[in-house]
C-alpha cells in the first residue's frame, strides 16, 4: 500500500494546479480559507468513504463485472459511466448541501462571506478528480483496506489544499490588509492586527489579481523546492557506469 501523496508531492493547488478558483477567490481572509478547507475536507472524505461503502450494494449485471477493477474512465460502458458519475455527484452535492446548512446555522457571517463558493464545492475540481480515481461502479464491494485508503487519500489531499490556502491567505491578508482574521476565542476578538502594515497595506494583494500572484509564487516555490530536492537526490546517487 503506497502512502498518499496529495499533501506535498501531489499537492492539489501547488503541484497539480487544480482547485484554483477557491484558492484565488476566498483567500482574502485567513478565516475564509480555513472554512473553505474544512468544507472541502468534509465533502471529500464523506463522499469517498460513503461511495466506497455503497459501491458493493449496487449489483452489477452479470458478465459486465470487470475482472480487475480499473479507474472508472477506462473500463466502463457509457451507461454505467453515467450512472457512476451521477451517483458520485449526487453524494457530493448532498454533503455539500449539508455543509452549507451547517455553516449557515453555526457561522452565518462566514456563510455570507464565502457565498457561492460553498455550493461550488460539489463540482470542485479536486472533488471531481479524487472521486474519479475510485473504482468502477460494478466493482466488488470495497474492502476495509480500500475504505481506509480512500479516507487517507482524501485527508491528505484535503490537508494539502488547506495548507496551500493557509499560506496564500496569510500572505495576502498580512500584506494586503495588515490583519489576520481568526476565530474569536474568549477575550481574543478574532483579529490579529499586524503593526505598521495595517496602516498602509498593499491593497493590490486583496484583489483577485493579487490572489493569482500569490498562487503563482506558491506553485513556483513548490516546483523550485521539488527541483532542488530532485537534483540533490540525483547528485547523491552513485554514478552508474555502463554495464
Amino acid at each position, binding site marked *: 500500500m503506497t502512502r498518499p501523496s496529495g499533501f506535498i508531492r501531489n499537492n492539489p493547488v501547488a503541484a497539480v494546479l487544480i482547485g484554483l478558483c477557491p484558492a484565488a477567490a476566498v483567500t482574502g481572509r485567513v478565516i475564509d480559507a480555513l472554512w473553505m478547507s474544512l468544507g472541502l475536507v468534509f465533502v471529500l472524505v464523506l463522499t469517498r468513504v460513503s461511495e466506497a461503502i455503497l459501491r458493493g450494494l449496487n449489483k452489477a449485471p452479470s458478465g459486465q463485472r470487470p475482472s480487475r477493477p480499473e479507474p472508472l474512465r477506462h473500463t466502463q460502458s457509457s451507461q454505467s459511466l453515467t450512472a457512476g458519475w451521477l451517483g458520485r455527484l449526487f453524494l457530493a452535492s448532498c454533503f455539500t448541501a449539508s455543509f452549507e446548512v451547517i455553516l449557515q446555522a453555526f457561522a452565518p457571517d462566514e456563510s455570507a462571506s464565502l457565498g457561492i463558493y460553498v455550493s461550488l464545492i460539489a463540482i470542485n475540481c479536486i472533488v471531481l478528480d479524487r472521486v474519479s480515481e475510485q473504482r468502477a461502479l460494478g466493482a466488488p464491494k470495497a474492502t476495509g483496506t480500500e475504505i481506509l485508503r480512500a479516507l487517507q487519500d482524501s485527508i491528505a489531499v484535503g490537508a494539502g489544499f488547506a495548507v496551500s490556502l493557509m499560506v496564500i491567505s496569510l500572505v495576502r491578508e498580512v500584506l494586503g490588509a495588515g490583519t489576520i482574521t481568526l476565530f474569536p476565542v474568549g477575550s481574543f476578538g478574532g483579529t490579529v492586527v499586524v503593526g505598521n502594515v495595517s496602516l*498602509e*497595506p*498593499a*491593497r*493590490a*494583494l486583496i*484583489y483577485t*489579481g493579487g490572489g493569482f*500572484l500569490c498562487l503563482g*509564487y506558491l506553485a*513556483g516555490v513548490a516546483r523550485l523546492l521539488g527541483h532542488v530536492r530532485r537534483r540533490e537526490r540525483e547528485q547523491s546517487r552513485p554514478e552508474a557506469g555502463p554495464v
Partner: protein
Amino acid sequence: MLVVSPAPHVGGLSSTRRLNWSVACCLLPAAAWGVFLFGVPALSVLGVALGASLAAELLAALAWRRVTLADGSAAVTGLLVGMLMPPGVPLYVPAVASAFAIIIVKQSFGGLGRNWMNPALGGVVFALFSWANAMNSWLPARGVAAGTGVLPPLNALRAALTGAKSAHRGALAVLGASSYPWSAADGRVVAWINTHILSLAGWSLPGGVFDMLVGNIPGRIGDVSVPLLFLGAAYLLGRRVIRWQVPVTYLVTFCVAAQIFGGLPMGCGWGTGGALFQLFSGSLVLGAFFMATDPVTSPLTGTGKLLYGMCLGVLSFFLRYFGSGGDGVPLAIVLGNCVVPVIDRFAQPRVGSPGKAAAG
C-alpha cells in the same frame, strides 16, 4: 584607437547597455524639471525609487547568480517609477513599487528580455491599486502659492465637471472659471499676448496656456514637462533607439478619439474634447515615448507596432474618460502589454508571400 573584435562590425547605439543608458539620459531633463518645480521631496522620491530599483537588481543578481546591474535596465526602471510618482508621496511607495518592478515583474520571469510587462509600469500599477490615496498626494508647483490648489489640471477638471453638465469653451475655460491657480507668470504672458497680438484679430487665449505648454503645473514628477520629454524623445527617435510607429499612432489615436468623443461625457457635443489639453496633461507623452516603446514588451514588426499604438490609444481614451480615476495611461500600457503576443502572431511576416513580408 584600434579595436579588434569579431563580426558583425556594426557601429552606433546597438548594445542593450548603451540603449538603456541613453534612454536614462534622455529622461533626465524632464526629471530635473520635476525636481526644479517640486524641490527636495521630488528629489528624494526619485532617489528612493532609483536606489530601491538598483538594490532589488543587486538582490536578484545574488539570488540568480547573474549580475545585470550594468545593463542600465534597472536604472531606467527606477527612474521611470520615480517619474511616475506624485512628488508628495510617502517614500515607502516608490521603494515598494521599484522592488516589485524589478523582482516580481522582471526577474521572476527570467530577467530583461523575458518580462512580458513593462517593469516600471507594473510597479506603478501595483502602487496605484495598493495606495490610491498616497498616489494622489500632490505638491504645488514652483510658481503657485502654497495651499491654493495642488491638483493637476486633469484632476481639477474632473472635479470641476462632476455634476455640472453645461456647455463650455474648452478645458482651460472651465479651470479658469473654477479659479484654478495658474501661476503669476502665466497671467502676465497670456495677458501680453492677448493685448499685443491676438486683440488685433479679435481673439483671446484663456489663462493657463503658458503654464500648460511650459509644464509649470502640479503633476507627477516626470510628466509635467512635455517639451523636455519631447526633446528627449526626439534624440532617441533620431538615433533610432525608439521607433516612431508606437508613439505616433498612440498619440494620434488618443487625440482623435479625445477630440471627437471627449466632450460627450461632459455634456458637450461631438468634437469638443480638447485634445491638446489632454495631450499636455497626465503621463500620456511620457508613457507613449518612454514606456510604450519598450522593445521587450512591444510588438516586433512595423505593422504590429502600428496596431499596438492604436490599441493603446483607444484603451487610454476609455480609461481616462470612463475609468475610476487617474489618467489611464499606466493601466492602458499594462493592458496593452498583455495583447502584444497576439499582435505579434498576427503581424508576423509570412515566408513566401512577398506582399506581406514587405509589411514587416
